[in-house]
């Protein structure tokens, strides 16, 4: 195991983390908020010193780097980042305990958006900014960011593919262009351009620059931390529509934007995952809008209003953002059921969103259909296709393995969280786990859009922190940290 290289990567990550905390620090200074500024100052100094020590200890690392190191390294980086990123929250005194602060930042980096706070409007601007900015940082991934800006392993970046595979979501992560560094840069440029567009559209809607920036960060990372206690509900319909559109845009595989930039529209239209994503969003939106308009327990008077809220909630849940414009916990059961199912599907592979991913869902469905046809025609040989191309059997079996691990983690955390005294019903414990694990944020009942995770016990919070990070990193980087085999030499 190449411990030195892992140390060096961690040092780089911590160095980057210092840079990420800097805007919040400056904002606190501008606001003359002494305590928060001090909290950020101390955190930056501490993180910087740690980065320096690691960098000195791990000089002269060899660049050879394999899948095992990649997985473990990504897991450790995210854990370390959360532990250090929580410091400003705790030191500023805005959070009662370190665990609460850790929950909040893990929720931020993993782009979950689940909060332990009931009132966010009283927080200093610096803290609010750090909350939202953590979404943006976590959305595309810190290691990808590093890959884009520094030559991690000299001229030959071949070994860094393992890092990208471990950090990027999706069943089959590949490069867009031959060079890893250019690939990472392209992804970040797409991300940056879309975020800037989002900010501009929000500014046109009359938001202040600070609000627009924070809301855009929450949207871009598909996070969901807002600046208001009622999330996006208090803003104008224009802002709600803009946010709906951008949430959905950030839930699309970023390689589609790369193809669009090079004018390959036909390839984008042929993308099966994108089509399925569109169909699911449209279908769910219409179904919810109609259900909320008619029948017993109808909540909205006009179709326009019903459609706007339905689209926003569908977009928010499907892309695992977690913003809300309405308390969907009060919606009819059918609407809630659709949202619950969307929670389990999640966004597209290669997007900033979390969840099980549409492409995996498609692969599992196609696999099931093939198994059915095998029952009828046992000797038939048939390969599964995605976007017209045959899918490797290895990818299929990996997807099945992923499903198993996904369910296992969900079941174990559901059982542990159900022990919690603060949990009143099964919907709460179940959706708390689903919402955290899929990086959504709000669930139903006790963790509905108007509620928070503050009352949960320390054990539940730790389990949910693990779930959030595991959900963002697609389980295995976090799971290997728990496996003794990964730590054994050779």
């Amino acid at each position, binding site marked *: 195991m190449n411990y030195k290289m892992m140390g060096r990567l961690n040092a780089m990550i911590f160095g980057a983390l210092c840079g990420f905390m800097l805007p919040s620090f400056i904002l606190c200074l501008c606001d003359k908020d002494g305590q928060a500024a001090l909290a950020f100052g101390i955190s930056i100094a501490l993180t910087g010193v740690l980065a320096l020590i690691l960098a000195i200890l791990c000089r002269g690392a060899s660049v050879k780097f394999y899948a095992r190191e990649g997985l473990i390294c990504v897991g450790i980086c995210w854990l370390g980042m959360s532990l250090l990123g929580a410091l400003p929250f705790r030191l500023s005194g805005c959070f009662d305990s370190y665990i609460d602060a850790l929950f909040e930042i893990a929720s931020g980096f993993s782009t979950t958006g689940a909060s332990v706070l009931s009132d966010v409007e009283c927080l200093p601007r610096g803290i609010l900014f750090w909350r939202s900015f953590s979404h943006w940082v976590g959305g595309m991934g810190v290691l990808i960011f590093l890959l884009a800006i520094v030559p991690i392993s000299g*001229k*030959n*970046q*071949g070994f860094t593919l393992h890092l990208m595979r471990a950090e990027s979501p999706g069943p089959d992560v590949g490069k867009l*262009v031959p*060079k890893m560094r250019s690939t990472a840069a392209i992804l970040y440029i797409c991300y940056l351009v879309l975020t800037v567009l989002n900010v501009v559209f929000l500014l046109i809607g009359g938001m202040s620059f600070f609000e627009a920036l924070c809301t855009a960060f929450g949207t871009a990372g598909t996070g969901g931390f807002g600046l208001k206690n009622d999330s996006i509900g208090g803003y104008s319909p224009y802002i709600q529509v803009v946010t709906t559109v951008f949430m959905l845009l950030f839930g699309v595989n970023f390689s589609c934007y790369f193809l669009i930039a090079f004018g390959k529209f036909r390839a984008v239209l042929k993308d099966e995952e994108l089509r399925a994503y569109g169909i699911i969003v449209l279908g769910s939106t219409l179904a919810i809008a109609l259900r909320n308009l008619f029948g017993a327990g109808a909540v909205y008077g006009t179709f326009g209003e019903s459609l706007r809220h339905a689209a926003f909630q569908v977009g928010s849940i499907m892309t695992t953002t977690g913003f809300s414009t309405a308390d969907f916990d009060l919606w009819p059961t059918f609407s809630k059921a659709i949202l619950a199912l969307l929670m389990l599907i999640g966004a597209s592979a290669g997007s900033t969103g979390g969840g099980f991913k549409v492409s995996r869902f498609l692969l599992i469905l196609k696999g099931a259909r093939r198994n059915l046809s095998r029952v009828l025609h046992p000797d038939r040989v048939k390969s599964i296709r995605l976007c017209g191309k045959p899918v490797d059997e290895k990818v299929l079996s990996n997807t099945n393995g992923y499903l198993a691990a996904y369910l296992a983690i969900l079941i174990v955390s559901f059982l542990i969280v159900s022990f919690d005294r603060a949990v009143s019903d099964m919907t709460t414990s179940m959706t708390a786990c689903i919402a955290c694990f899929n990086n959504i944020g709000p669930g139903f009942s006790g963790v509905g859009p108007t509620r928070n995770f503050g009352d949960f016990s320390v054990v539940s919070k730790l389990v949910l922190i693990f779930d959030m990070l595991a959900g963002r990193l697609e389980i295995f980087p976090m799971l290997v940290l728990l496996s003794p085999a990964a730590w054994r030499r050779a």
Partner: protein
Amino acid sequence: MKILIAGIGKVGKTLVEQFAEEGYDLTVLDTNKEALERIVEICDVITVNGNCASMEVLTEAEVGKADLLIAATGSDEINLLCCAAAHSLCPTLNTIARIRNPEYSKQVYRMRDVFSLSMIFNPERQAAAEIDRLLHYPGFLKRESFAKGRMEIAELKVEEGSKLANASLTEIGSLLDCKILVCAVLRAGTCITPAGDFVLKAGDRIFVTATANDLSALLKNLGVVHRKVRSAMVIGGGLGGYYLAESLLEHGIHVKLVERDAERCRELSALLPKADIIYGDGTSQKVLDAEGLRDCDALVALTGNDETNILISLYGKSYGVPQIITNLGRVEDMNIIDTLPLGCVVSPRKLCCNTIVRYARAIHHKTGAAIAVHSIADGQAEAIEFVVDMNTKHFGEPLKNIRLKPNIRIAGINRADKTEIAGGDSIFGEGDTVVLVTSRDEVLLELNDIFAD
């Protein structure tokens, strides 16, 4: 610069590794999905799975944006088809194809025109030429020539009890009475760029620069017997064996070619009427003894299997064959190879990779480019020949006043009329070529890269 490499066998893989190190945009094509999977995990490349001669696959690999295509699949015909198809899709593309079938070897120049190829390479033929050269000048492990053969970098081993052992580099000039420069030393698997007070030890492999005349003097003064090779035994009648036998016979050296496939023996005997073709297993002591290995001046182990070649060479050494050459295709970078008495080690894929890398660099850097590149010291160092032009810094200054980056040594300077081994007072001027040796990790792409300021 964007480079397409079709086929990742031995040559393809070495090329990918070298080019990735130099930071080119690489696309690798192959029909073997698993091999692609392996290469993408160690090198910064993008892969396309499919037949490289298919236009659809080439389009997917974005051949239109590429500057260079290297077709190195196992089949000559596919390589040609691949280059022709790529050329039709992108007329400005430079194409390089591997052609190794001896039946085509007489028509390669015609084929180059017909298929608009920039270059044709043939690893086995190149290796045979190299071995032929080594047999003509015994005593050195390897020789690389620069400036059209006027200057050479030769590799030799410091034997126990040799005059070189325990001598410092400043002494050896007077000790051996010839002007040579030691530009790199390979000690215990690591390459050192030595300073003047560096003391050589027995077991070191040293790389010396000298003019061709001084090299002969060096050998004479070292007491290495310069015995002309009159007969050679070649084990392995594959492509390499055939090419070697052909050129050795041309130079009047008697060849015994041992091949264990009866059918191939018949083919060879038809192709090489002057050679003794022996049907037998080259690893069998009995066969070698019976054919008179003891009386041969040279033994060349040229089978397709590295392990077999090592065994044969060790056996030849124990017999006291004066000149032994071992062909290694796969394991020549392993550190332990150094400790074995294998004589000269020749690697076909490395030889042809050097040529291709040089070509790629030349089309990448139109000015100030390297005109010759040789990888020496097991790939840990490079000897490069650059042209000095108007933009080169420091020309006209004596070398002792120029500060170079660490681990770079200027080995020699070639002018129109003479070749000079670099000393403190040497100067280079416009139009000269400079040969330098570097063991740095970074790739030197132009001459100005070597200066510290």
